[in-house]
């Protein structure tokens, strides 16, 4: 009876996640002994740990795919690439967070461990075929983000943002868990391979349960990746949360949620095809709502919130192309677009975080006026990242959108392709609005203040700039590195 045999463990597969976790723990320990108000040692430790994890992941890029720990951990190229993206996003966010939090007068040392553990949650989500792990990873990711969104407690906006995110996020988690419970009830397995088997055996009773459970799970993922009609929280939360947290949320949380959504949809592709018509309309609605609602916004962070919704719509379209024609279209478009989206959106947020000074921060469009005079580098990075978000050639955003367009045509989903093209044209207006505020509009009577760029912010900006251009100009070599992830 007490014959306990632990599952076989391939430690190399969990090394990156464990490294990231230990980095957070080290940061938390240092926080106790550091000198007051000085987070440099925590920042350096965090950056070092993340870089180490990144290189371990890079070393495993061509490693054999496989599962370990009784199917709870999966290693394949898709997972490793998204894990690398997540670690990179956390690295860049931490680079520009130190100065921002100091200027905003909220230099909590706990920010770094929480951001790192949040990344760890995302890494667990994208590298598992077990619904249980996806759920626990999602909770680790989200609970850290709820706290981070409310970091600036003196501001009512930040508190509102955290509370809204907590309530709606828990609601979404409940939907996801409800769906997982149904899928488990119908298939007797939390592993996606078991779900596929149950679907294939064709028992009419359990098929309805599976369909219903899948629908509930899609609602949960829809909340997390900000797809319309589950997007309402996005602009408010993005506006209220501290800017560095918003940047991390926009890039990291999206990569994780989309990665898990893709895994669920693509692993049980026959089951997901039943949901294809609904998802088709969700994609259209998301692209339209995100882009049109952004037109009337006056706050940069709100605009970027809507931009994040519309980008979720583009990526969902790419996923649907894969679900419709899994034999012809692989995951490389999605991975490429997530990479380029992370780089360009982090670049914009890094620039905007400059506006914080002496505990105050202006995020209206008019607060950006004269930005190029205050810092030409920031102005340049802003305009390149915006160009990429619009999708102007030579940038990563253009190449990504072009590939999604191509995939949609290959998968015979022309309506989605048309909506993608039209809404992209609409998006030019509000992205140009941001660029106009930073470069053309004259400063008002009281010029906005901003702190000088520190080294961390400069490095973060330049990294994003280089990333956008590398993905735009050397798109093909990057794609080759991503490799053929065809199912």
């Amino acid at each position: 009876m007490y014959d306990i045999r632990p599952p076989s463990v391939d430690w190399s597969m969990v090394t990156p996640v464990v490294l990231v976790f230990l980095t957070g723990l080290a940061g938390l320990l240092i926080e106790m002994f550091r000198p007051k108000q000085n987070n440099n040692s925590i920042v350096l430790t965090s950056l070092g740990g993340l870089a180490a994890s990144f290189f371990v992941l890079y070393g495993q890029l061509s490693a054999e795919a496989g599962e370990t720990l009784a199917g709870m951990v999966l290693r394949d190229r898709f997972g490793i690439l998204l894990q690398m993206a997540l670690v990179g996003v956390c690295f860049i966010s931490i680079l520009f967070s130190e100065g921002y939090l100091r200027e905003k007068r909220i230099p909590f040392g706990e920010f770094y461990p929480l951001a790192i553990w949040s990344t760890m949650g995302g890494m667990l989500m994208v590298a598992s075929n077990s619904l249980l792990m996806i759920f626990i990873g999602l909770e680790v990711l989200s609970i850290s983000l709820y706290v981070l969104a409310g970091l600036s407690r003196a501001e009512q906006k930040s508190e509102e943002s955290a509370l809204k995110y907590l309530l709606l996020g828990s609601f979404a988690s409940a939907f996801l868990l409800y769906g997982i419970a149904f899928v488990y009830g119908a298939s007797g397995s939390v592993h996606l391979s078991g779900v596929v088997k149950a679907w294939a055996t064709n028992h009419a009773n359990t098929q309805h349960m599976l369909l219903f459970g899948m629908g509930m799970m899609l609602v949960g993922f829809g909340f997390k990746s900000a797809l319309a009609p589950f997007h309402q929280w996005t602009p408010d939360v993005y506006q209220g949360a501290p800017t560095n947290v918003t940047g991390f949320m926009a890039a990291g949380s999206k990569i994780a949620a989309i990665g898990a959504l893709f895994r669920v949809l693509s692993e049980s592709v026959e089951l997901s095809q039943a949901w294809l018509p609904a998802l088709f309309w969700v994609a259209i609605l998301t692209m339209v709502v995100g882009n049109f609602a952004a037109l009337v916004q006056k706050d940069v962070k709100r605009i970027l919130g809507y931009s994040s919704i519309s980008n979720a719509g583009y990526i969902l379209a790419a996923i649907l192309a894969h679900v419709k024609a899994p034999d012809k279209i692989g995951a490389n478009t999605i991975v490429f677009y997530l990479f380029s989206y992370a780089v360009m959106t982090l670049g914009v947020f890094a620039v905007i975080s400059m506006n914080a000074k002496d505990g105050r921060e202006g995020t209206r469009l008019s607060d950006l006026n004269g930005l190029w005079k205050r810092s030409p580098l920031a102005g340049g990075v802003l305009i390149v990242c915006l160009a990429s978000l619009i999708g102007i050639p030579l940038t990563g955003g253009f190449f990504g959108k072009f590939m999604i367009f191509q995939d949609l045509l290959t998968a015979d989903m022309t309506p989605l392709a048309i909506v993608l093209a039209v809404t992209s044209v609409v998006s030019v207006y509000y992205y140009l609005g941001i660029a106009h505020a930073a470069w053309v509009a004259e400063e008002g009577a009281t010029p906005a203040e901003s702190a000088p760029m520190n080294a961390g912010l400069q490095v973060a900006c330049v990294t994003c700039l280089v990333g956008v251009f590398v993905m735009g100009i050397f798109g093909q070599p990057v794609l080759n590195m991503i490799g053929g992830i065809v199912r």
Partner: protein
Amino acid sequence: MNLPVTGEQLTFMALAGIAALMAVGVVVLNNPVRSAMCLVVNFFFLAFIYFTLNAQLLGISQILVYTGAIMVLFLFVVMLLNLGGKQIFKERRDFKPILGMVVGVSLFGMISSQLILPMLKVDQIRADNAYGAPQSIGKTLFTNYVWPFEIASVLLLVGIVGSILLAKRRV
């Protein structure tokens, strides 16, 4: 001695009767603290029923989670809010009690229509020995599910750090 009921049935009746009585008390009593205490007793007796069914782990978790954590939290909230006596729980006369009654009765009907017939045939109130036993659950938890188990501890750590971060006043 030739009683019409067996000892097991007698035990069950006693436990279930008290549990049901306490559940009625939760709704009927006007003082919120008394209602909450009734719920605590109800949870305890539910746990005892689980023990008689050989589901020890379920019983222990029932006491730990519901009585230990959730009810104490309830009581804290009730006491901190300091509701002003009896008038708070006086219901207004509107459609809500009727609606609640309709929903409650239909839920009861739905569940009992599925449960009563199969339950009538049951004469032995005892689960299989290995079913839900602490040993088998522990074994599963520390073999196949050891990774999620460990990650759940990270989740708790995040929760602790986060709540302290949000509660502390100065940097």
